[in-house]
C-alpha cells in the first residue's frame, strides 16, 4: 500500500488530462451546459476507446483493463478538475461495480468498451447508511411501477439498473420515461426515471446498496479533490496577477493565510482520498467482513473531509475572485455547483461522520 501515485497512475493521469485539455476546456463545458446535450458523449467514446477508462474496473477476461479503485480515483480527480460532463462515475463506477458484484457478465463487456452506457436507478442523494427508499414495486407479472428521482447519468444511459430490495433489475432506457430537471450542478444533471408497467425480466443478481454506495462515496472523494485542486490553483494564479492598491491581491497577509489554510486542507484531502482509493482497491473480489470495516471507515473519512474541503475551497475561490467570480462567464461557478451538489451525493459529510460512531467505535449518547 502507498498513499503516493504510482508511475502507471501518473501516466494515466497525463493521458486523461491531455485529452480533457483539448476537448473539454472551460468554454466548451460552459457552452454545453445550456444546450440540449450537456453530456459530451463524443468525448466519452474517445476516452473509452483511446484510454480505456470505461473498462478500468472490469477484469481483462471481460474486455476491461483489470485496474483497480486506485486508477479510477486518479481518473475521477482529473474529471473533477475539468468538471467534465461524462458518465464515468455513473456508468463505469457505480453501474459497473453493481454488475460485477451481481455476477453479471454480458452487460459488463458492453460497458467496458464504452459503447453501452448504464446508470444505477438510485437517487444521487442516497446514503450508504440508510435503506434505499422503495419507490418502485415489482408486480407478480414482472412489471415495474413507480419512480426514482434525482438519478444522475440517466439521460445518457442505454440501460438502467434498478435495485428493488436486494435484487437488481436491468431495464432498457427506451422502456422508461426520463425527465431531466433543472439541476444545481450544471455538469452532472439529474433526472426523474418513471417506470409504468415496464417489463422487468428476471433479476440479474443481488445488490448490496451499502457496499456499492460506500465505494462510490469513497471514490467520489477523489473527484471532490480534483474540484478543490482546480479551484485552489486557479485562485492562486488569479491573486498573483490581480492587483488592488498597487499590489497583487495575493500579497495581502490575510489572503495569504487563508490560502495556506486551504492548501493544508487540500493536502489532507489528498491523503484521505488516496487512502480510501487504496483500501477500496482490495474490494474487487469477495468482500471479507474485517477489511470491509476498514474500507468503509476510509471511505467515510475521505467522503466527509473531501466534500467539505471542496465546498470550502470553491466558496473561498468565489470570494477571492471578487466580482468576476460571481459572473456566468467565469467557469468558477461550475465548480462551486459541482462541489455543493456532490456534497449531497452518496451521503452528506454529516452522514459519513455519523457512520463513524460505529466504524470507529465513537458511540453517541444513549
Amino acid at each position, binding site marked *: 500500500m502507498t498513499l503516493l501515485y504510482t508511475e502507471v497512475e501518473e501516466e494515466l493521469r497525463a493521458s486523461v488530462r491531455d485529452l480533457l485539455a483539448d476537448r473539454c476546456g472551460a468554454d466548451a463545458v460552459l457552452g454545453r451546459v445550456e444546450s440540449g446535450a450537456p453530456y459530451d458523449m463524443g468525448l466519452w467514446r474517445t476516452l473509452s476507446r483511446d484510454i480505456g477508462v470505461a473498462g478500468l474496473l472490469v477484469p481483462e477476461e471481460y474486455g476491461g483493463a483489470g485496474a483497480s479503485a486506485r486508477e479510477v480515483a486518479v481518473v475521477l480527480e482529473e474529471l473533477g478538475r475539468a468538471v467534465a460532463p461524462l458518465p464515468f462515475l455513473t456508468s463505469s463506477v457505480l453501474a459497473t461495480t453493481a454488475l460485477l458484484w451481481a455476477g453479471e457478465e454480458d452487460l459488463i463487456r458492453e460497458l467496458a468498451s464504452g459503447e453501452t452506457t448504464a446508470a444505477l436507478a438510485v437517487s444521487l442523494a442516497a446514503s450508504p447508511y440508510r435503506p434505499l427508499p422503495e419507490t418502485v414495486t415489482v408486480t407478480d407479472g414482472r412489471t415495474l411501477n413507480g419512480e426514482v428521482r434525482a438519478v444522475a447519468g440517466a439521460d445518457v444511459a442505454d440501460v438502467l439498473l434498478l435495485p428493488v430490495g436486494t435484487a437488481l433489475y436491468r431495464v432498457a432506457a427506451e422502456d422508461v420515461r426520463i425527465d431531466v430537471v433543472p439541476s444545481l450542478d450544471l455538469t452532472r444533471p439529474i433526472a426523474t426515471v418513471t417506470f409504468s408497467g415496464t417489463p422487468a425480466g428476471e433479476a440479474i443478481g443481488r445488490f448490496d446498496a451499502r457496499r456499492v454506495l460506500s465505494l462510490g462515496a469513497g471514490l467520489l472523494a477523489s473527484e471532490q479533490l480534483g474540484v478543490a485542486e482546480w479551484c485552489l490553483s486557479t485562485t492562486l494564479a488569479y491573486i498573483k496577477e490581480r492587483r488592488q492598491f*498597487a499590489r497583487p491581491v495575493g500579497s495581502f497577509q490575510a489572503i495569504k493565510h487563508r490560502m495556506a489554510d486551504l492548501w493544508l486542507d487540500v493536502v489532507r484531502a489528498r491523503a484521505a482520498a488516496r487512502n480510501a482509493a487504496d483500501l477500496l482497491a482490495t474490494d474487487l473480489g469477495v468482500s471479507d467482513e474485517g477489511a470491509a470495516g476498514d474500507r468503509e471507515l476510509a471511505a467515510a473519512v475521505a467522503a466527509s473531509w473531501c466534500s467539505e474541503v471542496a465546498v470550502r475551497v470553491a*466558496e473561498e475561490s468565489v470570494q477571492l475572485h471578487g466580482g468576476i467570480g460571481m459572473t456566468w462567464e467565469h467557469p468558477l461557478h461550475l465548480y462551486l455547483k459541482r462541489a455543493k451538489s456532490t456534497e449531497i451525493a452518496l451521503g452528506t459529510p*454529516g452522514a459519513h461522520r455519523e457512520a463513524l460512531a460505529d466504524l470507529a467505535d465513537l458511540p*453517541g449518547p444513549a
Partner: protein
Amino acid sequence: MALDEKAVRERAAAFLAGYDPAGDRLEFLRARFDAGLAWVHFPEGLGGLGAARELQNVVERELEGTPQLDLGTQTIGLGMAAPTILTFGTDEQRKRFLRPLWTGEEIWCQLFSEPGAGSDLATLGTRAVRDGDEWVVDGQKVWTSGAHHSRWAILVARTDPDVPKHRGLTYFVCDMHAPGVEVRPLRQITGEAEFNEVFLTGVRLGDDLRLGEVGDGWRVAQTTLMNERVAIGGAPVRRGGGVAGLVTETWRSRPELRTHDLHQRLLRLWVEAEVTRLAGTRLREQLSAGQPGPEGSGMKLAFADLNQALSGLDVELRGEDGLVYDDWTFRRSDTVDFFGRGPGYRYLRAKGNSIEGGTSEILRNIIAERVLGLPSEPRVDKDVPWKDLPR
C-alpha cells in the same frame, strides 16, 4: 427652531386633509414632496422641513396606506444619490434632481466600480477630459444595477492622471440618455442578470452636471458610500426571521430530514442569527440615542457570513431536493429578492453578500483601522501619480 413631533404630525395630517391619496399616484407623491414630507430632515423646498431625521417615522405612520415609493428601483437614487446631491450639489442641481428622484419619475444608477477597480475604487481609470463647457467621458463601468431603465447615474471619473489616485477624481451626474452610453446585461452565477456593464464612449456631459469641485471626487464618493453601508444590513429582523426563518420553516415542517449533525449546526447558526439580530437592534438604539457607535460596519459583515452559512445548510439539509435548481433561464431582474426563490438560488445569490457594497475583506480592514485603531499596512500607492502605479 426646528419642528417637533407634534408639529410634524400636524403637517402630515394637514397635507392628508388636502390631498386624496386615492387619486393620481404621481400627483400625490409630487404634492407630498412639495409639502416637505419626503425627507423631513431635508431643507424646506427640497422635500423636507429641516426637522430631525427620526421624525420621518412620524410622517410614515401618518401616511400609512397612501401611495408609496418603489423602493426596489429607487434604492440607489434615495439611498446614495440624494444625500450626495444634497451635500455637494448646487442650488440648481438640487432643484433639478431631487423631486423627480424622490417621486421615482427619474431612476438613478451608480457608475463607480470598474473591472480593474473593485475594492480599490480610487484606482479607477474612466477618464473625463474637459472640452470647453463640457467633459468627454471614456471608460467602462461594471456592477451597475438598473442601468437599463435609469435616467441618471452618479459617476466618478479620473480628471487628472498626474496626481496620486485619490486626488485626481471628479464626481458627475451622468446622463444615461446621452450618446455613447451603452448598457449590457451582466449574467451572474444565479443565471439571471441583476447588474450591467456600462460602456462610456465619448459621452459628453455639461459642466453643470459636475457635483463638487474638480479633483474632489473621492471625498464626494465617500459620502455616497457611507450612506450605502448604513443602508445594507440596517433593517430590523424579528426573532427567527430572515434567512434563518426560511431554514427553520423547512426544518419544522420536514422532520424526516433531521439528523443530529444538521441539528447541531442549525442550533449554532440559529444562535448566531439571534445574537446578530440583537446586535442590530442595539445598534439602532444607539443611533436613535445619538450614539452613532462603530458597530455598523460589523453588521454587514455578520449578515453576509450568516446568510452564506444558512443558505448553504439549507441546500444540504434538503438532500435530494437540494440537487435541484428552480430556473436557469437568462433574464434581466429589476430588483433583488434574497428570499423569493429556491434554496439553490439563495445559496448562490448569498455569495454576493460578501462582495457587493464593500467586500468582507475591506470591511475587516475598516473595522481594524477605524474602530480598533490598528495601524495601517505599509502603503505603496499613496504618493505615486495614478499614471505611474504598477498595473
